[in-house]
C-alpha cells in the first residue's frame, strides 16, 4: 500500500462500509429507545447542561457569526480543492519522516493498521478516542486478529468495558449515569477498589490507575486526528484528559487513521477552528490539551509515524452537489446537543457511528441512500433547524435532510411497483394543491368531516399511516365552510377602525 495511489477524485464514488449503517429503521429503533426512562433522563440532563454551557461561552464572542462564516469558508475551500491539498499534505508529511497509506474503505483501513501493528510484533495497543476508527470498526477487527486495543479516553473506556457502543460523538457514555459507571468499573476492571463510590473524582482515579500501566507499557498507539494541515504536513489532536498526549508521545509507533476531509489548507486556519471547536463541543473557551505533530523528531516521541488516509464514502459525499458540505463537519456534536429528536432517542437509535442530525445526513451520504436502513435516517428530524443554528461551520443540515429525502423518494420511484400509502397521499395532495379550484372542490366535503367528528367535535382515529397522528393527538372537527367559501359568499369589506375606540364592525364569520 504505497503512497500516491490516490490521485484526485476517483472516477466512481466509493461508498462507505463498517459502522456506518443502521441495522434497523430509525422509527423502530427510536420506539425501543424511547421506552428507556433512565436513558431519557440521563440524556435530557446531559444535553441541556452542555447546551447551556455552549450558549454562555458563544455569547462571550462578539464575532461568533463571522467566525462561523470563516470556518465554513475555509472548509468549502478545502473541499473545492481537496485532491491538490491531499497531494500537498502527503508531500509535507512524508518529507518529515511520516509514512502515508491510502484506504478506500473500512476493510482496507483495518488491514493496513493490522499489518502495521504486526510488523512491530506487539499484540496490545493503546488508543486515543477516534471517530474514524469507530467508523471502520477497528477494535473489533483487531480483536479478531488477536490484537487487544485499549481505549484510554474515560468515556470511551466506560463504553468499551461495558461491551456497549458509544452513543454520542463527544460524550460516548452520555447515556450512562455515574452509578452505572461505578457498577461497570467494579464488574470489569481487573484490579479495582471494592469500596469504590460513584463520586466523579473516585471514578476518575480508578480509571487513571487502570490506564497508567497501559500507557507506560504500550509500544504502539492508534489515534485519530482532528485536523491535518496541508501546508506543513502537521496532524492535530484536540482533547480534554491528557490521555491523548500520553498515547501520542510515549509509544514507539504511532498509527493515525484520518478521514480525507479533515484537512485545512494552512497552519493559520487552525486559529479559527481552535476557537470554534472547544466552544461548540464542550462549552469551554479552550480545551485542555492540543497536540500537534509533524512527522518524526529523532530521539523524541514515536519514531515510526504512520497515517492511514480514509475514504470510506467521503468521495461519494463529495460528489453530491447538495450534500457535500456535510463533510465540513468538525465532529463537535453541537447539533446533537440541541436536537429534540436526539435528546429523546439517544445515539443508538441512529445505528451509525455518527448519530444525531449530522449522522442523519452524513451516514446516508457516505453509504448511499439506497442502503436500506440508512434511508430512514433523513426522516429522523422535525426540521426544526436548531442544528443549523448551532453548527460552528454552518452546515445547513435541514436543507440536506430534505435533499436526501428527495434522493430517497426518487430512488424508490423507479423500483416500487405498488405505490406506498405515502406515495398515494402525496399524489392526491399534488392534485388537490395544484389548482385553487381543486382545493375548493374538496372543501365542499368539510361538513362530512364535521359529521364524522360527531358530538365530541374531535376525530380520534384515522386509518393507515395517518393513524400515527391519532395515537396521541385528536383532530378538531373541521369547520362547516372553508375560508374560500366564506370569501366568495359572505365577505363584506369592513370599514376602517377609529384608532383607540376598541370597536370594529369586522365580520368574524361563522362561529362554531
Amino acid at each position: 500500500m504505497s503512497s500516491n495511489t490516490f490521485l484526485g477524485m476517483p472516477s466512481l464514488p466509493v461508498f462507505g462500509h463498517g459502522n456506518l449503517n443502521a441495522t434497523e429503521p430509525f422509527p423502530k429503533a427510536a420506539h425501543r429507545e424511547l421506552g428507556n426512562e433512565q436513558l431519557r433522563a440521563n440524556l435530557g440532563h446531559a444535553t441541556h447542561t452542555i447546551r447551556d454551557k455552549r450558549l454562555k461561552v458563544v455569547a462571550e464572542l462578539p464575532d461568533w457569526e463571522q467566525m462561523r462564516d470563516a470556518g465554513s469558508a475555509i472548509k468549502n475551500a478545502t473541499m473545492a480543492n481537496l485532491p491538490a491539498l491531499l497531494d500537498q499534505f502527503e508531500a509535507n508529511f512524508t518529507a518529515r519522516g511520516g509514512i502515508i497509506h491510502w484506504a478506500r474503505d473500512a476493510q482496507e483501513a483495518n488491514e493496513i493498521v493490522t499489518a502495521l501493528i504486526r510488523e512491530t510484533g506487539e499484540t496490545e495497543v493503546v488508543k486515543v478516542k477516534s471517530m474514524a476508527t469507530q467508523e471502520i470498526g477497528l477494535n473489533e477487527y483487531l480483536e479478531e486478529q488477536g490484537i487487544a486495543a485499549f481505549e484510554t479516553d474515560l468515556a470511551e473506556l466506560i463504553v468499551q468495558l461495558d461491551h456497549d457502543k458509544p452513543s454520542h460523538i463527544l460524550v460516548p457514555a452520555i447515556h450512562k449515569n455515574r452509578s452505572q459507571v461505578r457498577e461497570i468499573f467494579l464488574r470489569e476492571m481487573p484490579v479495582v477498589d471494592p469500596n469504590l463510590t460513584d463520586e466523579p473524582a473516585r471514578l476518575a482515579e480508578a480509571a487513571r490507575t487502570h490506564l497508567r500501566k497501559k500507557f507506560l507499557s504500550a509500544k504502539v498507539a492508534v489515534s485519530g486526528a482532528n485536523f491535518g494541515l496541508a501546508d506543513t504536513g502537521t496532524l492535530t489532536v484536540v482533547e480534554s484528559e491528557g490521555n491523548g498526549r500520553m498515547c501520542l508521545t510515549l509509544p514507539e509507533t504511532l498509527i493515525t487513521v484520518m478521514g480525507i476531509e479533515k484537512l485545512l489548507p494552512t497552519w493559520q486556519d487552525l486559529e479559527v477552528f481552535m476557537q470554534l471547536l472547544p466552544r461548540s463541543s464542550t462549552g469551554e473557551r479552550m480545551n485542555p490539551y492540543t497536540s500537534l505533530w509533524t512527522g518524526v523528531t529523532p530521539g523524541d516521541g514515536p519514531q515510526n509515524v504512520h497515517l492511514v488516509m480514509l475514504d470510506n464514502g467521503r468521495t461519494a459525499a463529495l460528489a453530491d452537489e447538495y450534500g457535500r458540505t456535510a463533510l465540513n463537519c468538525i465532529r463537535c456534536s453541537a447539533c446533537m446537543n440541541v436536537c429534540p429528536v436526539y435528546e429523546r432517542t439517544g445515539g443508538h437509535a441512529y445505528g451509525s457511528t455518527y448519530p444525531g442530525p449530522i449522522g442523519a445526513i452524513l451516514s446516508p451520504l457516505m453509504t448511499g441512500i439506497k442502503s436500506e436502513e440508512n434511508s430512514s435516517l433523513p426522516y429522523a428530524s422535525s426540521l426544526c433547524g436548531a442544528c443549523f443554528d448551532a453548527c460552528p461551520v454552518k452546515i445547513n443540515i435541514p436543507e440536506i435532510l430534505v435533499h436526501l429525502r428527495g434522493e430517497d423518494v426518487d430512488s424508490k420511484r423507479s423500483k416500487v411497483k405498488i405505490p406506498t400509502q405515502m406515495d398515494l397521499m402525496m399524489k392526491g395532495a399534488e392534485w388537490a394543491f395544484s389548482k385553487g379550484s381543486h382545493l375548493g372542490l374538496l372543501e365542499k366535503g368539510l361538513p362530512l368531516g364535521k359529521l364524522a367528528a360527531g358530538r365530541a367535535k374531535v376525530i380520534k382515529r384515522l386509518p393507515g399511516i395517518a393513524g400515527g397522528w391519532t395515537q396521541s393527538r385528536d383532530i378538531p372537527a373541521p369547520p362547516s365552510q372553508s375560508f374560500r367559501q366564506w370569501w366568495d359568499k359572505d365577505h363584506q369589506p369592513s370599514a376602517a377602525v377609529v384608532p383607540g375606540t376598541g370597536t370594529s364592525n369586522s365580520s368574524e364569520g361563522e362561529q362554531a
Partner: protein
Amino acid sequence: MKIALFATCIVDAMYPRTAQATVSLLERLGHEVVFPAGQACCGQMHVNSGYFKEAHAVVANHVEAFDTDDYDVAVAPSGSCVASVKHQHEMVARRCGDAGLEARAAKVGAKTYELSQLLTDVLGITNAAEQLGSYFPHKVTYHPSCHGMRLLRLEDRQLNLLASVGGIQMVELPQADQCCGFGGTFSMKNADVSSAMNADKAANICGTGAELCSGGDASCLLHIGGGLSRQGSEVGTLHFAEILASTFANPVTVTGDVKLAGSKR
C-alpha cells in the same frame, strides 16, 4: 395598500377564522385585501417529504396565482408557509430544471410577508390595543414556531403584538424555543418521537396556568392542541391573528372543550 392574502391550505380548510381575522385586521387599518382565487398550498409538505416532482405542480400553481402586479405585498398568517415560499420554491424549481419558474418564484418570495412581519415592519403596528382595538382579557402563553423563529427570524414580533393587546395577561412558556414535534409527515413517520416532543410541550404549557397557547402557525397549533385535547386538558390553542382581531364589542370565541375565564361553557 393593496394586500394579497395567502390563506394557506390548512387555514383555508381547517381554520378559516384565522384568515378571516387576518382580513379583518388589514381592513381595519384601511387596506384593501384581495384573495387570488387560484391559490392552494405552498407545497411544504411535498418538499419536506422528499416529493420534489409532485411539489413542482404545487409551487407552479402558487407562483401562477401570486405573480401579478395586481397587489403591493402578499401576506400569510403562517411562518412555515412563508418560509417555504421564500426558501423552498426556488430550490424546487431548480431541482426540476425549471429556470423560468425559479425566477418568478424569487419575485413572489420577495413580496411575501408573514403577518407579524407585515404588521410590525411595514404597517408600523406597535400597540395592538390602540392601533387595532384589540381586546382579549385572558391568560395566554406563546409558542414561537421553528420556521418563524429560525428561517424568518421573526424574533419577538408576534409576542410583542400579543403583549400589547388590551386586557391580555401573557405568561412565559418554559423552553419555548423547543420544537413541538409536528414537522409535517414527521408526525406520522416518526409518530413516537413526535408524540414524546409534543408531550413535553404540553406539560410546559399546562405548567404555566394559561387558558390558551397562542402562536403563528396553524399546523403547530393543530398538533399542540390535538395533544392537549387527547390528554383531556382544558387548555386550547389560538392563532395570534384571532387574538389581535378580538375586540371588546366583538370578542373571539374558542372551539372545543377549551374553557376561557368568564365563559359560560
